[in-house]
């Protein structure tokens, strides 16, 4: 594309970009959230949602409503939109759209494997999987006993296969291994996605590298915080960080040796974009970090819509919608459990 996207972008991508921007206009605004937060029962939420784009998906639900139903139906809407876009897309946009779902695929794989490890019912686990990350033989994951089998049996057919090259061991699966596998896969996935976006070039590369770098850095911080106090060695920890992003490589060196949250903070505050995130938190606190990161991410995702002729909008839209569904889930849970005072704790306003 070489910076001349404006000339040719609309031939294949114009229609879908228009569609995705139209979808984006349907995202909830602060006023919607305010109204939702005032709801007394789940039926109130349903009533409010019936006036939005979610209406048709919820209208045939019988009245004693559950949070899971609301979330399920809202996710269904997102999936429908995604499938429609995927149907209409041509190369390279279709590949780009598929890349978006790989993250969910990794999560689903991990979910099923962990579930089987704890002897849960496969069918029950399947219901919990994110529908965007489904693939044909996902249920067979339950058969595998170790990583090698996992790869050989199931994953070799999925797009995740190349990411597995780094974590094929014959060790039996346990919680720690699975978590390491998740992060290794995620690392490989992010790097691959990053490379793919660089290959696309133009505004897509520019915007997506920013968004993916943020994602990589966030994962690096989370890995560090979660691995504090576990038997994960520094070298192993270092291996799980993605090889790009603002923190690469010097930040990673510093994160790798961190022993408590305040050291992480010290390492991160050297980077201006993250300084503002950490400055919102008091010392020693890591609970609110997730929300702060989400807020920053949403801000960045919204900015992606400011520019035209790039694929970042698709990524941004999917992420924003997922955030919205998370918000909705939180609000519904708060309403259902009569915890309305906590409703604002985890809701991230999008606009």
């Amino acid at each position, binding site marked *: 594309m070489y910076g001349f996207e404006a000339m040719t972008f609309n031939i294949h991508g114009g229609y879908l970009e228009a569609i995705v921007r139209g979808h984006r206009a349907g995202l909830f605004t602060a006023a919607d959230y305010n109204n939702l937060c005032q709801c007394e029962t789940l039926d109130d939420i349903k*009533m409010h949602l019936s006036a939005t784009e979610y209406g048709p998906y919820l209208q045939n639900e019988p009245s004693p409503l559950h949070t899971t139903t609301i979330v399920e139906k809202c996710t269904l809407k997102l999936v429908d939109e995604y499938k429609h876009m995927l149907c209409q897309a041509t190369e390279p946009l279709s590949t780009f759209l598929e890349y978006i779902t790989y993250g969910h695929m990794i999560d689903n794989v991990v979910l099923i494997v962990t579930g089987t490890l704890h002897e849960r019912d*496969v069918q029950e686990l399947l219901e919990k999987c994110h529908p965007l990350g489904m693939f*044909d033989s996902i*249920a067979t994951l339950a*058969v595998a006993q170790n990583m090698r089998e996992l790869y050989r049996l199931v994953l070799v057919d999925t797009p995740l296969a190349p990411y597995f090259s780094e974590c094929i061991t014959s060790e039996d699966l346990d919680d720690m291994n699975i978590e390491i596998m998740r992060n290794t896969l995620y690392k490989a996935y992010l790097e691959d996605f990053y490379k793919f976006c660089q290959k696309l070039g133009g505004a897509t590369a520019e915007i997506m590298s920013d968004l993916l770098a943020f994602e990589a850095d966030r994962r690096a911080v989370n890995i560090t915080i979660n691995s504090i106090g576990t038997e994960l060695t520094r070298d192993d920890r270092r291996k799980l960080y993605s090889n790009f992003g603002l923190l690469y490589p010097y930040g990673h060196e510093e994160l790798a040796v961190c022993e408590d949250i305040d050291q992480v903070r010290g390492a991160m505050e050297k980077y201006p974009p993250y300084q503002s995130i950490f400055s919102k938190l008091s010392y020693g606190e890591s609970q609110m970090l997730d929300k702060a990161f989400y807020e920053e991410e949403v801000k960045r995702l919204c900015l992606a819509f400011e520019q035209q002729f790039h694929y970042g909008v698709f990524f941004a839209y999917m992420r924003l919608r997922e955030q919205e569904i998370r918000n909705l889930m939180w609000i519904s849970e708060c309403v259902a459990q009569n915890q309305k005072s906590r409703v604002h704790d985890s809701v991230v306003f999008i606009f």
Partner: protein
Amino acid sequence: MGGGTHRPTMDLLRSEPMQLVQLIIPIESAHRSISYLGDLGFFQFKDLNSEKSPFQRTYATQIKRCGEMARKLRFFKEQMVKAGLSPSTRSAISDDVDLDNLEVKLGELEAELMEMNANHEKLQHSYNELIEYKLVVQKAGEFFHSAQSMAAAKQREVEAQQRGEGSIDSPLLLEQEMVTDPSKQVKLGFVSGLVPREKSLAFERILFRATRGNVFLKQSVLEGSVTDPASGEKAEKNVFVVFYSGERARNKIVKICEAFGANRYPFTEDLSKQFQIITEVSGRLEELKTTIDVGLVHQTNLLQTIAYHFEQWSHLVKKEKSIYHTLSMLSIDVTKKCLVAEGWCPVFATNKIQNVLQRATVDSNSQIGTIFHILQTKESPPTYFHTNKFTSAFQEIVDAYGIAKYQEANPGVFTIITFPFLFAVMFGDWGHGICLFLATSYFIIKEKKFSSQKLGDITEMIFGGRYVIMMMALFSIYTGLIYNEFFSVPFELFGPSAYGCRDPACRDASTAGLVKVRATYPFGVDPKWHGTRSELPFLNSLKMKMSILLGVAQMNLGIILSYFNAKFSGNELNIRYQFLPQMIFLNSLFGYLSLLIVVKWCIGSQADLYHVMIYMFLSPTDDLGENQLFFGQKFLQIVLLLAALVAVPWMLFPKPFLLKKQHEERHRGQSYALLENSLDESDEMEVRHGSSSHEEFEFSEVFVHQLIHTIEFVLGAVSNTASYLRLWALSLAHSELSSVFYDKVLLLAWGFNNIFILIIGIFVFICATVGVLLVMETLSAFLHALRLHWVEFQSKFYEGDGYKFQPFSFASLDAEDE
């Protein structure tokens, strides 16, 4: 506003006079009142609770109940569609069902239906399972049978071989194998079942990988599809038997089967047991079948009773929901004893509304009547035109541009005639006109049938505009007669042609021309013009001049309407400093041109009108020479030119300064002087002054606005007049196209004297005429006529910034849902 009632009704020219009304309704009769008002359909409620979110409103619970009932009804409908029933349309039994009873009834029916469905599903599930089981037993039986016979044959073969070849070559191992074989076979376990066909390949692959190839899988395709017990959907499946050894392999296989949704069924090798199973299963299938059938009959009966009432119920629920929506828009009095409604209604419906409210009070045994109170307001009322099925389509054309401001002159009235007429000027062919008329008469004759059923998008559009199309067709027959066009064939309908040959042999007809032998052809264009060399110059000149005349006339009408608008709203400034200079400007240039055209037609002069018009600007004092049409033309031209030049600053400067002056005067408290001359409209004036006194007066803004307006008008006068030439251009294109199709297709095919070619020729001619001339040309002429109305005509006077009157009415309720 009071003045409105004394004027004669203007029907469509001005929208109905409206009033803002406050109703104070006692809470006990509120529901009934709203319901009656909805039946009447003349009251537009204002949302007095717009700051409240939907679930905080007073009647949110009732709305939720209605939504829940609507959901149940949708569920019933879905079930009915599944069962192949349609809601009966004749269920107009009006036994009064009230909402509470209905809710209970719907709940009961839903529970009953759900239970039935659950039972049915359970039965169906086991039924399908049994069927699958039976199939597996049959198919797997075949496997085993063929395998055993093959094995037996092989064994015999081996034995024969052994006997024949002696014992030297025969390996001992083979013998050993043969010996150990039966014991191994015992250890081999197997799993049998059904797997969906599209998954069978992946299934095989995964099995292979999981057990490292240590399985033997045998599959067999089932003809026809099987109903899957779990999902209840038809699917194509394969029967499989997997042989394995060892317990671990078995666990893996079982897990894989689960993952692939393959249903496993036990199977015995014993033949007699197999037969026993098959007979057993068949017997149970029979039993289940009868049970399911009985259940189905029962369910169908229930659905039929539901279907009988369905329309009535869904109508009732929709009605109730809309009533509660409306009730939620009202504000509750502090004492909680009455509801306060505000809304617009047409003045003529005042009595009807009061009667209805009275009736509601009586019917609900309320002690206190509803108070009907007219409010004074600064708000602009909604626009309401009382249209019928003929005028509504024309009004739609205007509304598509913008809804008329309250009580401003409505171009819709004129559109009824001018629109089809301008269309016909471009579409002048009475043959095509008749075709169009026949097509639209079909829609008009079948009106009753079509209006009750749902049509496709395009048909819907044509049906909606059927009267517009009818008028267009009638007018194009008229203009077609004037143009003397009938599929480009000339006719001597109104007497013989005025022209004839110079001599009987008619040799020089195409070179020297014809001479006039009779009186002028009485109506329209002489048929002899058709096909002559001078046909085009003659028709072009005629149509071009006609277009200018029509255009100037229509633009003048537009400006005159702006006068009536200004007069209606008592705006002297607009009359003096906008209407007058505009009239002078347009008519001194293009009005004069029209005059020249008419004079030239009357006296038959050969003056060059372009020359006259251009030199009127370039050198007004020059002698006109041979282009002079009448005495004193030069003097008149100079006067007109000066008038046009004066008109421009007249339009531009006085109005903003006078507005400023008015504004300043008003702020010095002298605005009362203005009231004296319009006492009858005192209410209106007061209202207007009330509103304008709050406005900030920004002189530069007003001046720039006026400047833009002036430039737009001055340039527009030229470009709009030129724009009317499209009438000529399209008319030319139409007649040329039709003559091409006639000459080059029909006459050419005729010339071959071959019946086959003629048929093809006629076919092509009909296709081209219908496709290009009747459909595409109609569309393009329609769009051009639309443009002439929206841009050239309406821009002269039409504000179009009003909003439509949308009364609360049950009649529109059903329509919007379909």
